[in-house]
């Protein structure tokens, strides 16, 4: 089977052309003059639509278009947030360190949480970048250890309860603590 016929078959399988004409049609480029000259395409972009079966959809972990809800926590993720399982505090306590990450829950809908965080962080001098339900806040002021980057993620525990996790990737832990305290006063109504 030649490559033109193969292309036809693929396109037929996607339901764009009828199976019967695959092999005769010989997909040509979109340019009319090329079609006239019978030049078949070496390569061009085309969208093939494949309908995912329900089973494969369930296990699909990639980005979904149109799925605008935050990641749902499974039981083990929930369990792993408990203090007893986070041995970091063994170190934090002894070193007098302030936490590098923190979390709180809210009954507000997820998108409201995101807007409220944005609204509170903006005036504090943070630049906010959003990606679905993950946010990156970058402190514009340079602190002791440079700018303070904070990542925030909203998880769904149940459709009416969400958990917001905030952690700092670099920067001064004390500044993070200050930031978090200031933020929570601004978010008092949703926490």
């Amino acid at each position, binding site marked *: 089977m030649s490559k033109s016929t193969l292309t036809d078959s693929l396109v037929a399988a996607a339901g764009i052309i009828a199976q019967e004409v695959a092999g005769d049609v010989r997909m040509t480029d979109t340019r009319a003059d090329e079609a006239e000259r019978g030049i078949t395409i070496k390569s061009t972009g085309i969208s093939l639509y494949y309908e995912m079966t329900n089973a494969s959809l369930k296990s699909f972990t990639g980005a979904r278009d149109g799925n605008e809800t935050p990641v749902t926590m499974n*039981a083990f993720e*929930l369990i792993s947030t*408990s*203090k*007893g*399982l986070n041995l*970091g505090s063994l*170190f934090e306590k002894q070193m007098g360190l302030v936490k590098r990450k923190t979390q709180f829950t809210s009954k507000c809908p997820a998108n409201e949480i995101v807007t409220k965080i944005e609204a509170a962080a903006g005036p504090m001098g943070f630049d906010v970048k959003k990606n679905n339900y993950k946010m990156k806040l970058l402190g514009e002021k340079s602190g002791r250890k440079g700018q303070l980057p904070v990542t925030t993620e909203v998880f769904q525990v*149940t459709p009416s*309860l969400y958990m917001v996790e905030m952690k700092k990737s670099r920067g001064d832990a004390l500044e993070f603590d200050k930031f978090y305290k200031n933020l929570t006063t601004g978010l008092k109504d949703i926490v």
Partner: protein
Amino acid sequence: MTQCVDGFKHVCNSLFRCFDLEIYKQSGGLGDPELLARETVFSVSEIEALYELFKKISSAVIDDGLINKEEFQLALFKTNKKESLFADRVFDLFDTKHNGILGFEEFARALSVFHPNAPIDDKIDFSFQLYDLKQQGFIERQEVKQMVVATLAESGMNLSDEVIESIIDKTFEEADTKHDGRIDKEEWRILVLRHPSLLKNMTLQYLKDITTTFPSFVFHSQVEDT
């Protein structure tokens, strides 16, 4: 006459010092840092730094060079009044000698699994044993429920039994591929590899910086100067 007594005193002192060293080792001293370094992912200096942390934790209630359950809870929660299902499980897993106390060796070996460089298989094994409350080799639905309820209680979140059941249902749907109502080691492994965030509390970044945060003084070092 006085020279004799002095000499005798001197001998006694040396003897006592020797004796102390013996006791020191047995009751939970540093032991052999090079051996520990060989058998864990820590370097010798990391072991020594870890020992500084160990000393702080183990002297909180009884200064005996060992961590008992109370001192462990104190270190974890800032209060020794907190009964925690999870702290109990963690302590039990650390306590490989099953004598109710943690010596430095047990402490270091267990924490080695939490080092960022530790092999992921060790983390998978440790976490499986952690969640396998009854230690029967399976994580049962009832055990998951117990842990979810404990987590919610700890954080003050209030969810109805129905909601909890549905969270567990969804989790088992995905994890229990053999459909036998429980999660075995293999199913756990597959679940965790698909959701690496499930292992996030099995890695402590702090362990990487431990030599700078717990500097141990030069004369403690048993590394030989050649």
